[in-house]
């Protein structure tokens, strides 16, 4: 549980960080909250020669409302998300989800950028970002680009990030006023990854679902958008038969691994239940 030796860098600007990561190549890793990388280093599953600590870059922090979008700097911590009135007002599901991540100590250090950029299928924010239709700003040696969350995740720990690129901010469209939302996460204990979790954002009109997005956490090597399940509920009043169909459609795209949280069959089964519960609770919250 002792990491190998490494050089430590603390750039003061995004440009300097990119320059460092580009010039140091594969042997350099950016460091955000460190909750994934540092345990990996202690177990020597990762042995980077260089750590590029992003904590010195003021530009990577902050939460701003800009018209109908909210922009969040990558180095904003989960704790700062929870403390933000803007998040509570515009994106209550983000507040709800951040509260389900680990414990306060972890949330003081853990960042939203690290959570979404690492590509860990156990992380909660990626599926939520897909559900919300968020996009990520990636900055690298060849300039900046925007990638939508739903196209960012390619496999476990594989993302659209190119060598030398850093995810610098997240832009989230603010859901319609009166929308319903829920993040249902089954976990064994505080600090655990989800056995299965489902994020739902929906709107209702005249007692029927007008729009719906469903995201799934930790039931596949990447976060998932359950588009078929979402399509099935639109236009319905979320009657029991529809809920059952939607859950079944969501379960159909799940491919979790068996682990200490349970066998594959169990994780898919409770994944379906999380979808049902999230839909039901989200609908009840619509105004």
């Amino acid at each position, binding site marked *: *549980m002792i990491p190998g*030796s490494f050089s430590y860098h603390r750039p003061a600007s995004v440009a300097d960080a990119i320059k460092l990561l580009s010039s140091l190549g594969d042997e350099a890793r950016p460091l955000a909250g460190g909750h994934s990388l540092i345990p990996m280093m202690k177990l020597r599953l990762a042995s980077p020669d260089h750590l590029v600590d992003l904590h010195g870059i003021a530009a990577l922090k902050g939460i701003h409302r800009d018209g109908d979008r909210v922009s969040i700097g990558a180095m904003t911590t989960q704790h700062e998300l929870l403390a933000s009135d803007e998040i509570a007002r515009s994106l209550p599901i983000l507040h709800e989800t951040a509260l389900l991540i680990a414990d306060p100590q972890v949330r003081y250090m853990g960042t939203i950028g690290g959570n979404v950029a690492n590509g860990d299928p156990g992380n909660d924010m990626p599926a939520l970002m897909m559900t919300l239709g968020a996009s990520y700003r990636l900055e690298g040696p060849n300039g900046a680009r925007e990638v939508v969350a739903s196209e960012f995740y390619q496999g476990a720990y594989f993302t659209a990030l190119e060598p030398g690129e850093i995810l610098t901010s997240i832009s989230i469209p603010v859901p319609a006023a009166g929308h319903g939302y829920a993040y249902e996460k089954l976990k064994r*204990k*505080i*600090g655990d990854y989800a056995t299965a979790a489902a994020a739902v954002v929906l709107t209702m009109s005249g007692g029927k679902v007008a729009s719906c997005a469903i995201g799934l956490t930790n039931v596949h090597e990447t976060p998932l958008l359950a588009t078929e399940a979402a399509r099935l509920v639109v236009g319905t009043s979320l009657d029991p038969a529809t809920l059952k169909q939607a859950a079944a459609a969501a379960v159909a795209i799940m491919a979790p691994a068996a682990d200490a949280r*349970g066998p594959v069959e*169990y994780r898919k*089964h*409770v994944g379906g239940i999380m979808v049902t519960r999230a839909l039901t609770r989200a609908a009840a919250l619509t105004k």
Partner: protein
Amino acid sequence: MNDMTPTREQREAKLEGMGCKRKRVEDARFTQGKGNYVDDLKLPGMLHGDFVRSPHAHARVKSINSEAAMKIPGVLAVITAETLKTVNLAWMPTLAGDVQMVLADGKVLFQNQEVAFVVATDRYAADDGINAVEVEYEPLPVVIDPFHAMDADAPVLREDLAGKTTGAHGPRKHHNHVFEWTVGDKDLTDAAFRKADVTIKEMISYHRTHPSPLETCQCVCSFDKISGELSIWGTFQAPHVIRTVVALIAKIPEQKIHVISPDVGGGFGNKVGAYPGYICAAVASIVTGKPVKWVEDRIENLTATSFARDYHMTTELAATKDGKVTGLRVHVLADHGAFDACADPSKWPAGFFNIVTGSYDIPTAHVSVDGIYTNKAPGGVAYRCSFRVTEAAYCIERGMDILAQKLGMDPAELRLKNFIKAEQFPYHSALGWEYDSGDYHTAMKKMMESVDYAGLRREQASLREAFKRGETREIMGVGVSFFTEIVGAGPSKNCDILGIAMFDSCEIRLHPTGAGIARVGSKSTGQGHETTWAQIIATEIGIPADDIKIEEGNTDTAPYGLGTYGSRSTPVAGAAIAMAARKIKAKAQMIAAWLLEVHEDDLEWDIDGFRVKGLPEKFKSMKDLCWAAYHAVPPGMEPGLEAVSYYDPPNMTYPFGAYICVMNIDVDTGVYKIRRFYALDDCGTRINPMIIEGQIHGGLTEAFAIAMGQEIRYDDAGNVVTGSFMDFFMPTAVETPHWETDFTVTPSPHHPIGAKGVGESPNVGGVPAFSNAVNDAFSFLGSTHIQMPHDFWRNWQAAKNLGALAA
């Protein structure tokens, strides 16, 4: 009388003696981060050791190449079994009469077994070093499933035992067999089963788990080449035993060995035995002449130092049709892993498992235990319980529920019908124990009234109907557990460790100003001895607890003791403290008689001093007598006021309790909700009710963890799949249920202050309460027994197997 004269109540209160909820004096440093643990120790020139460990569960070690490791700056030595052979320490004895490799000698027998020890100038270099040692392995077939360990064609694990048909505990019947231990009358028991109206038989497993104290095992060894003295600071629950073991195996004169247990962050049985880390650090210090520190990390602790349980108990009960139990038969398959490293008293290879008749008057019983080797970490320690008592309690308490189910009787009613009656104490059990005292019916009835047991059963019945009608997806379980512990090992007639009788000791020295110090052979690992020991002395000799310093853990100053585990501190060391205090009191009485010019028999004890009978104004306080002991003793008497006592208990103590757990389970997810947990404990005289409550809370939390998810699990290849707190269930405050505690008081008749042990009762009684609640919840769907741990997915699996899931 003027207003300044303290009342009797005020004098009593000032002592903060027995029965007082005295605040823990040690917490002043613990809550401010000022504890002094082994890893806080930094000695000049100190080196650091770390282990190369085996990735395989069973493999031949073809070669170990240290060349690259030795080139790493800071790496000073790589110690292997070959190095240790030069000092005859490649293997070490276990407390269970087996031998254990210190470092892999030719082969490895479990994953993460110690293969080489790298010594370096800092911990980083040591870790770089272990990653650079090249070990060539030839994997061998593994034995993981204990039920196949004694197959005719099972791989031979312990080649060192080849041809040995007898082990430390009698004949071995297979190359992977450790021992067979039997107790009870087989013929009578078989006859009881033949005559029985009703019998049950169930294989009840108590899975492998781990004590996992928050502070892992660690030590600093420092050998002085000039004086030839070896100092060892370590996380030891039994420092004196460690000193003797070191003297015996390292051939260093015992007076030149100094063993010190500083503050210890939890033990729970994990820190009783000796581990390769201690031997390697000591050898490294002897070789280098420098202090060497070894600190285990969490993964190493969970996967290599002693596990607990792993008992597979085929349990049979015989009864009459109206529910009188007539016989008990148990066969245990005991998985000890690669080496038998139990920390039981030497003559007890299965600990005190023969307490398995529990709280019941069962006329005949027979137990047999087969210990076996597998490719798992060695051990079998008592995780917060007396030796194998939690396994025994789980066995009989599940068995009684299963029998009740078969008889169609309420489980509480079946227990009440079979309890040992208060007038039967001292009670001789069919398996050889003499229970000292108990009043089970009173405790059980108090529990049932406190929780409205009948009301819970009515609620359960109506919820079951609602479930059958499809109106709810929740099922409700009520788990009753009534346990009897056997603690305070133990009487020299049947308890020893490596031939040393399991007494304990106390030395009290009072100072002229009426303060003093007591040194005790036990060692707190969090139990609060610095607080409670002073309370016993305060009540016994009338010196305020605040004026008594308690010291433990330094073998140079403390009298020889056998340490703290098996809830033995209060039954044994606590008795020694009272006895030493009484010796002091007797001498003080002689001094008082001299000063008051009366005969000793004319004096009576009054809270904090001696008074002449009938003349209340003629009084000498204990504080006055302390001063007098240093300047005005009677002619012929030695000055000073000190005493030492070594206490060999005449019997064990038998604390007991009535627990109940109320739980709802959502069958669709398997998620449970502990609605209520009530624990009534009877530990005899209560020294500090607040500390008892804290002990109960802690032990119940462990019981909750064990029953509901905590396990050391291996895959088929012998890889540990629960090697970190991400997967090994360690509940936080959020998951932990609310605990309700209660008590009755039935003093131990043979203990000087009537106290019994208590720290482990909640672990022993708690696990069956949780498991019985889960099993009770599912029983109406047709199951008789569901194995622990009862985590979410297994509950769901049970519901699925019983056809309780929606189509």
